[in-house]
């Protein structure tokens, strides 16, 4: 693949995201979207190219969190734009922040063990990272509402669908964990973190039925929950930077 090993494409994608955000902020929104879209396509092509970093195709590097997450957030921005939401460009901010992290992150691949070479693993990472993208977008929009002191609950559907995606990742992950290691749940940091996150967002879903938790308090909960998610998931990404890698 022409983007394999050529990390310049990731830099180009991020540059286009930044340009799109600047155009959006300076009200050149008609130009902003095509620039963003081109950046998104290049980002996707770079992501696919990662599959051959080991010299033989493996889907695992494509779905690695630090690299898939910015694409996930960008996809949500795209969906918001196609839903005729004029504020789609706000989601460029978390897209760029996560993309900057991926620029800093180690770009090589962790050699896959035989237990990771299954579509169950791919399905798990795709749904988990997509869920994270929804949670972060929901939290970001909640934060914007808090700062702008405005009404609206546009953040809520992101968290609801993020929870659905995260639930899918729990089932897929449990199947993968059993096939690979003989446990649906493991007393280790990875499993306990994801279980805690699932329970935390399950708690959020119940707030709608508690009158004392008005929209403002729910926004704050969404932001704090995303902060906790960020602490654990990015802590995990940074920890993985210490693992021996191939291809950068």
């Amino acid at each position, binding site marked *: 693949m022409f983007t394999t090993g050529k990390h310049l494409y990731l830099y180009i994608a991020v540059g286009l995201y930044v340009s799109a955000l600047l155009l959006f902020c300076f009200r050149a929104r008609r130009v902003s979207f095509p620039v963003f879209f081109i950046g998104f396509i290049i980002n996707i092509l770079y992501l696919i190219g990662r599959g051959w970093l080991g010299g033989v195709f493996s889907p695992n590097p494509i779905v690695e969190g630090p690299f898939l997450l910015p694409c996930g957030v960008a996809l949500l921005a795209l969906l918001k734009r196609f839903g005729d939401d004029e504020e789609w460009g706000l989601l460029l901010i978390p897209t760029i922040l996560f993309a900057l992290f991926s620029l800093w992150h180690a770009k090589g691949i962790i050699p*896959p063990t035989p237990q990771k070479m299954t579509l169950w693993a791919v399905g798990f990472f795709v749904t988990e990272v997509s869920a994270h993208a929804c949670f972060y977008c929901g939290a970001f929009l909640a934060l914007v509402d808090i700062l702008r002191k405005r009404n609206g609950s546009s953040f809520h559907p992101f968290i609801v669908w993020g929870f659905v995606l995260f639930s899918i990742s729990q089932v897929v992950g449990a199947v993968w964990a059993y096939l690979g290691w003989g446990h*649906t749940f493991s007393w280790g940091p990875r499993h306990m973190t994801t279980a805690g996150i699932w329970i935390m967002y399950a708690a959020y879903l119940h707030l709608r039925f508690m009158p004392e938790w008005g929209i403002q308090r729910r926004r704050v909960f969404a932001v704090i929950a995303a902060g906790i998610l960020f602490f654990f998931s990015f802590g995990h990404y940074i920890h993985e930077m210490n693992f021996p890698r191939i291809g950068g």
Partner: protein
Amino acid sequence: MGDLKLTFWLLLSVAVAMFIGALMSLEHFAFFASMNEARVQDWLAVHFVRNVHLSWWIPLLFLAMALLGVNTFICTCTRIASLLSRRKEMSLRHFLFSVTPSIIHGLFIVIIFGHLVTFTMGEWQRVSIQKGAEVSLVEGDAPLVVKGIRHSYFPDNSGLRNRISRSRVTLKNESGDTVHVEYLKPIYYRGRHLLLDRVKIRRVEEKRIEYDPAAEETCNKAANYRVQKIVKSGTGKKHELQLKIIDDPGLYIIIPAFTLLLMSMLWYFTELQLKK
């Protein structure tokens, strides 16, 4: 009990306990990993008193989960009773939509129960395998004999050369029937699941090899699958292929319940979106 506010705070308590456990297990990975292959009551009996500073959160987690389960059960029963009393006033679709969250909660209780069954009734065994070795699944039963072990490697011209991509172990029973076990393809044999694993072994003396789960273990297992062509004698590390023999009665509760929960959730939130 049977209160929504209590549900919320119990959910947060469980989440906090999980996060504490996650942070603890980051620092003491091998210590907590040993819980995965022991019944929790047996593990706590050995480790809890000796390592209270590490394991204090585990009983609190189980207590919070138990209270959450009871509270959820009472809430669910109350809700279903209320809906059933008003069944004649609503259409079937509206009734199903209204009762789905209760079904989801009921399935959640089933999942918690399934995990409890796994934690308290599961059985795990590890057996080192090499060609010709005998593997006993159950004491007194005729053993399986390892007839062959075949490894496949990534291509030599790739960056992943000298790394195992697949392994296939052939076992033969007393009747002459063969079974094959590969990574990610566990087999069900005489009431047990058989899986492959590859672990790091610390060689203490030249003749004695011990499986020591604390041998610099981390969550990254990639190095276990890198084959060293030159084997050094004396003390050092080597990797060993093992067969895991598992009896997990909770598996048949957890996976179906979680799948049904997921399907219910998907239907419910889609209906909610359509109603808007």
